[in-house]
């Protein structure tokens, strides 16, 4: 099963997840993984909006931004980034079987 993030906001349960389609849509929304460090706030906002596309498509952006305002942001960006990388990670895992292994000391 793919990784998901769940929380309840204003009495409603939300599930955040990325599919391959929503990863591309998030990219199209302007998310650039290379800019996470230099533009963390913008990255968090776009990533958070993109994470709603899989299960809560059609939710107004204003509503999503309001939820983000009320959410504990400690560790939120790395967690969302992990969700975002999941669809590519599983493909790379499948591809890494025959590759040369490396170690870091």
């Amino acid at each position: 099963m793919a990784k998901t993030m769940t929380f309840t906001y204003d009495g409603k349960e939300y599930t955040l997840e990325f599919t391959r389609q929503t990863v591309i849509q998030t990219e199209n929304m302007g998310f650039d993984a290379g800019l996470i460090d230099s533009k963390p706030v913008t990255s968090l906002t776009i990533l958070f909006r993109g994470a709603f596309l899989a299960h809560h498509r059609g939710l107004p952006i204003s509503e999503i931004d309001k939820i983000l305002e009320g959410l504990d942001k400690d560790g939120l960006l790395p967690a969302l980034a992990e969700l975002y990388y999941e669809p590519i990670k599983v493909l790379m895992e499948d591809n890494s079987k025959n590759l040369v292994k490396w170690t870091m000391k």
Partner: protein
Amino acid sequence: MDDEVTELPSYSVFGGGGDHLKTPTSYREIFENALPTYIFLGMTPDEFWNGDCALVSAYRKAYEMKQEADNTRLWLQGAYIYDAISRLIPIIQPFAKKGTKAVPYLDKPYPLTDKENKSEDKKIEQGEVKALNWMQERMIAINSHFNEGYKL
């Protein structure tokens, strides 16, 4: 051929294809490169794009299992052919005596599952018990015959 064991078509997450100067591709390109492989494995485009992203691992594992099953089936087919030829040897050898007959072909398939194996073992066991009982009865009969002889 549908049954043929084929190698899984590979794709490169980083583009590849011998073009070593090519920069890493966008996620869209990476996914689009991988899509034909997963369609080949039986995944629908909708599952690939919108389904649980971890499904790809299950499809790959299922494909490996199918390959193993196919390989076993082909091996079994070879075993049946080998068995059939072995049974013909008495009649196909050059100096076979006139009237020699081939060993009849198996009357049923090889037992493959545990259940079939157990049932086969049970039948053999029952046959052995039956043979043992028959021998014991014969021995008793013979012994009693000798005992009677001694009495005389």
